């Protein structure tokens, strides 16, 4: 595909603004740029066709099965998009007076109320723009709490080694020392390791439950109790909330604060990487430390970004919650768990689950034995799935399982899709035993063959330059 810059024709343009109806204002030369930015010069039809072509080279949830573990790639309802595009929401300036923004404020208040109920928390902020941003906000609550009490010796955050990479990175951004504790063989918290790590320097624990291998930690009440007894607080990473929403609440598990990914659990689209929204909830005693906007609410609070957050994402999530209602929320969770267990059951006997027991909304296949036997790796299987039009599962995560493939089908897949997916896995299992070469070279029918990532990293080309010499080479491929 040509780059949009390679389609540019000097002098071509769209007529979008019309003539200025007041006198021009001039600036002294010293403020002005030497040459205009080299943006493409195109007609509207050029732009439309370019992006339509790009869009045809994207696999979305609407295209087919997308069992990307820990990402909750559920269907994104269209009505949510329509509501987020209402001019009554899109045209509202964040600094318009309260009397003119009652609808927006009601959206935030209502969504906060529903999410507090679902999470078992007392207060909620929508300022964080994503899950990792929510973690940062949540761990800052813990930091402020200890600081306010003068309990400044609490410098350590405990993170299980099965955690998402964002957890330790977040703790470090909050100035804490990270104490990684090993997981028990089933991926759950090793209580002895936890006890050994706890002490007067413990600020808190960051935990995902169900954990990153898709198992609900049955010791959860004991875990949060131990942390509290040591004087620490408990942070719930809501990445896996889809498994349990409406069934059991993090607040009832003993957690003090939580983030929820509205772009996972509450069906707002991922947009090729974002925007998300990371609603952060907390118990009453942490409420004074929730962030605010200096411009909207006045100074004096912590603030993690401008204004009130990714508001239009919250509009989508609220629409979703309204359609699901108190019946639909647990129904979604239960079917997410059922679908995962059903798919695991149907795949079993070929690629084996890392933990052979009832899972929550996702499960991990361990291909290390298979790789020893056939030479076919988790990566090879993932790339082979692409030829079937299936998005690969999450690969090589969690780190505690080698050759891991993590599958999360979500509740919005039908039995027929799961049966088909299981059949594809079974076929690939058999193929790897007879023809590993085909799998090493996969995908065979994708947009591109496997890209050379080493070349990309050793010699980074991270933008296009108008260089006529390379252009002739590049233009040839189209």
């Amino acid at each position, binding site marked *: 595909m040509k780059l949009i810059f390679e389609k540019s024709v000097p002098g071509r343009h769209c007529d979008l603004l019309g003539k200025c109806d007041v006198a021009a204002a001039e600036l002294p030369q010293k403020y002005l740029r030497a040459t205009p930015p080299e943006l493409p010069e195109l007609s509207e039809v050029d732009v439309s066709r370019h992006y339509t072509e790009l869009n045809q080279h994207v696999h*979305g949830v609407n295209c087919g099965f997308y069992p990307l573990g820990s990402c909750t790639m559920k269907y994104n309802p269209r009505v949510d998009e329509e509501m987020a595009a209402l001019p009554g929401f899109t045209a509202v300036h964040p600094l318009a007076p309260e009397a003119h923004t009652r609808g927006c404020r009601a959206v935030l208040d209502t969504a906060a109320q529903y999410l507090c109920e679902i999470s078992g928390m007392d207060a909620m902020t929508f300022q964080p723009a994503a899950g990792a941003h929510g973690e940062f906000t949540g761990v800052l609550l813990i930091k402020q709490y200890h600081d306010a009490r003068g309990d400044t010796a609490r410098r350590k955050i405990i993170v299980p080694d099965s955690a998402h990479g964002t957890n330790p990175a977040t703790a470090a951004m909050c100035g804490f020392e990270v104490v990684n504790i090993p997981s028990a063989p089933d991926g759950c918290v090793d209580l002895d390791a936890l006890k050994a790590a706890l002490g007067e320097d413990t600020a808190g624990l960051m935990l995902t439950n169900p954990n990153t291998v898709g198992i609900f930690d049955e010791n959860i009440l004991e875990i949060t109790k131990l942390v509290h007894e040591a004087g620490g607080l408990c942070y719930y990473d809501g990445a896996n909330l889809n498994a349990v929403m409406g069934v059991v609440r993090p607040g009832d598990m003993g957690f003090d604060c939580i983030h929820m990914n509205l772009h996972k659990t509450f069906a707002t689209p991922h947009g090729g990487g974002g925007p998300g929204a990371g609603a952060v909830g907390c118990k009453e005693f942490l409420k004074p430390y929730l962030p605010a906007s200096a411009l909207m609410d006045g100074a004096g609070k912590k603030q993690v970004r401008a204004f009130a957050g990714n508001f239009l994402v919250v509009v989508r999530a609220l629409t979703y919650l309204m359609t699901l209602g108190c019946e639909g929320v647990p129904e979604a969770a239960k079917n997410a768990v059922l679908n995962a267990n059903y798919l695991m059951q149907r795949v079993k006997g070929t690629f084996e689950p890392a933990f052979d027991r009832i899972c929550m909304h996702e499960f991990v296949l361990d291909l290390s034995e298979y790789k020893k036997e056939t030479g076919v790796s988790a990566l090879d299987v993932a790339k082979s799935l692409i030829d079937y039009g299936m998005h690969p599962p999450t690969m090589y995560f969690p780190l505690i399982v080698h050759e891991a493939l993590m599958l999360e089908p979500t509740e919005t897949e039908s039995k027929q899709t799961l049966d088909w997916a299981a059949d594809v896995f079974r076929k690939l299992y058999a193929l790897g035993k007879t023809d590993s070469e085909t799998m090493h070279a996969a995908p065979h029918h994708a947009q591109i063959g496997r890209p050379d990532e080493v070349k990309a990293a050793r010699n980074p080309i991270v933008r296009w330059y108008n260089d006529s010499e390379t252009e002739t080479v590049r233009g040839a491929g189209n």
Partner: protein
Amino acid sequence: MSYVPSTPAERQEMLSAVGLKDWRELYRDVPPQMLLTKPLNIPHAMSELEASRAMQALAAQNTQFSLILRGAGAYDHYIPSIVKSVPAKEEFLTAYTPYQAEMSQGVLQSIFEYQTMICELTGMDVSNASVYDGATAAAEAAAACRDRKRRVTLISGAVNPDTIETVRTYCYGTNDELRVIPVKDGKTDPDALNELLTEDVSAVIVQQPNFFGLLEDAEALGEIAHAGGAQYVMSCNPIALGILKTPRECGADLAVGEGQPLGLPLGFGGPYLGYMAATKAMMRKLPGRIVGETTDSNGQRAYVLSLQAREQHIRREKASSNICSNEALCALTAAVYLSVMGPNGLAEAARQCMAKAHYLCEQLTKLPGVERVHSGDYFHEFVTTLPKREQVLAALEAEGILGGLPVEGGVLWCATEKAEKAALDRAVEIVKEVLAK
């Protein structure tokens, strides 16, 4: 309304296949006393029609102004139709992060093109694929500039207060110090900057145009920062960059900013778009995703997420940022906007913003008691004194006009290319009427 496709019969069939009788057994690891025994206290399920009505009723409670003369970090620009339709395409909309390059060339190429456009706007060598917004972009830039010896961040007092507070919060996180550079006549005071530049300062952050709409002497500030051994970070309005000197030309090491003016709606504050670009020397300090060009197994040009060893999923507690999800769809929106505007259209938008703001300022300052508070050159925002401030703003609102933002000493006004002369005249007339009462 439920989005679960399987029928009750199928669900039963699937349960049986797993060897279970009912769904409770799926949750057998959950301590039974924790299971919710009564329904969630949220309303019952609605049909799509009912939910749509309820949301429209909420939207109707907001005021849609016919003219918005308020900016302060969120700007009411014209959004071309195609800029709305492209990001609504379902594949772009519903895809995840392009980890699987073989299935995501469209997303990857669109980001590569976005990165190039941001580099062109800023004059930089490398851009990331976006961060959350302009405020977090500044905070991430401050973190990227720190090393073992230099930990202190200086930020101009003429930067948007939401940005200052966000940077302050991030500094609180890492236990680093933030010092605010005093402001003189609405602009960063170069002498004060010089005094604050101790050996432990890692970065100096200024905004162009600044919070008060004024143009900073950005090159001079950059020279002072560099002379003190600090990195220089500029936060720029991207529309203004259609005509203004690039951060690179001003000597910046990092260029950041709020990308909302590039085709994103006001949307009560988000989602917006934080852009970040840097010189080649700073490439590996940039947080977030970066798309790179390479070749595939057939030797064809291809795009991948590159330089990933900088990121949290690999570096874990040693990563300088935890960012994972970004604002990719907003970056796509900005790229489509810049594609249809082109270099001339963007410059025209910038010039019209400036012309309208200057016209508004001239007309307003003809009124008794309304004077500019600062003396410097400005882009599309300016501060005036305003007698009877609350009455004036209320009178404007009653006529469907959102006036400027009340700030210390007066009102911060903004005009964009959307404001017609007749509408500006009407606004000035209303102000005049209130002042005459």
